[in-house]
């Protein structure tokens, strides 16, 4: 029966053609979807670049990047005259945590852009306190001599530090009891990045 065979051959072709039609439609749909994803990804990549750049900027401000630049180096050290103390308070011969705080605050006032104490970078959450006679910066023990490095305009920084209106008590201690206070301008300082964490548990974005 060649006629029937012939007829079924035509049917097979129709079926194959219908299948082809469906496949083409699917492929068309998928290509459209892919294009959509590609465009989205391109937009994301653009955003990724923008956000990365913004993150770098914010990290720079937060003290999370090592920096270099001109500035001053301040050395604070306990007095070597300690043993000779007769009537004076023994505290007058030592560098205290508040001395470090006051010098650092002055350095910020002088427009410093980055500060480190004995290689501990000062950041927004830094507290400088003492446990007994031990000074802690970023919960890290630091011991004398204290080396404060501050990147900024060396002239402005030195002027503020040497201004007699500031650090009156401390300068008196230096003069009378031999506490060391040395300020040097440096052409190129290198400050390490802050290596601690910023635990944020209570502050939420926005109101």
């Amino acid at each position: 029966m060649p006629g029937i065979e012939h007829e079924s051959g035509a049917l097979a072709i129709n079926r194959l053609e219908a299948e082809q039609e469906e496949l083409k439609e699917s492929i068309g749909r998928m290509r459209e979807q892919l294009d959509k994803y590609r465009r989205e990804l391109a937009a994301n990549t653009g955003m990724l670049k923008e956000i990365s750049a913004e993150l770098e900027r914010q990290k720079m401000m937060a003290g999370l990047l090592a920096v270099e630049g001109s500035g001053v180096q301040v050395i604070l050290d306990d007095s070597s005259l300690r043993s000779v103390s007769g009537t004076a308070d023994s505290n007058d011969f030592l560098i205290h945590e508040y001395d470090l705080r006051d010098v650092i605050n002055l350095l910020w006032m002088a427009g410093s852009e980055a500060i480190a104490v004995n290689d501990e970078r000062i950041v927004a959450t830094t507290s400088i306190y003492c446990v007994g006679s031990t000074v802690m910066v970023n919960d890290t023990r630091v011991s004398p001599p204290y080396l404060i490095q501050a990147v900024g305009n060396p002239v402005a920084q030195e002027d503020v530090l040497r201004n007699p209106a500031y650090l009156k008590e401390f300068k008196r201690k230096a003069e009378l009891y031999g506490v060391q206070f040395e300020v040097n301008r440096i052409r190129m300082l290198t400050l390490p990045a802050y290596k601690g964490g910023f635990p944020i548990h209570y502050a939420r974005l926005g109101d």
Partner: protein
Amino acid sequence: MKSRSAQLSLTIVCFVLGLLLVAQFRTQRVTSRTLLSASSADQFVIASSLVENNARLREEMEALEEQLGEYQQATGRAVLEALVEELNKVRIINGLVEVSGFGVEVSIDGPIGVLDIQDLINELRNAGAEALTINGERLTLYSVIASTEDGVMIVNGMKLSRPYILQAIGQPEALETALLRRGGLIATLERNYDGLAVSVIKRERMVLPVYKGAIEFVYASPIE
């Protein structure tokens, strides 16, 4: 004449329509006839080329499916989300976004110096303060607390008037304990200054504004 001409145009219309219908009918017939009129050998060739073509189409579809799958995993999106989260955290640290949360409010009235306020801020930071303001001025790493010669306090370049209200977001009990502990900073300040009025109140929800200043780096540049 009028009716005749109308009749004539109608005839023409019918004739044209008839032609069109025949043409359409013919096209249909021709299509189905090509398939039927094709020899079995031709049908075989057509069918096998269709089978081949459909196989290729299916292959293409599989490749597209795979690509779509890759995009749907959306690794780019995950990276983006992680970056945004980190960025927001650092912005909180830098005081460049408004924040809200639990904490304490410290009110200080009376004679008090810049250094004492600095010590108080240091104490709050030590107790885990995550964000701080004084009289609505957000305190950042670069905030300077100074005073004019006649003792007016200046923060972020703004003059403050008394009472000084410090707001600190953080664990309220830890912040309160750090300030009020026996022999602590507030006790010392109260001993040192006559007529100093200090109060510490735990707050459930405070909103701290953004730092309005700008920080520019002229001397420092990042390494690497």
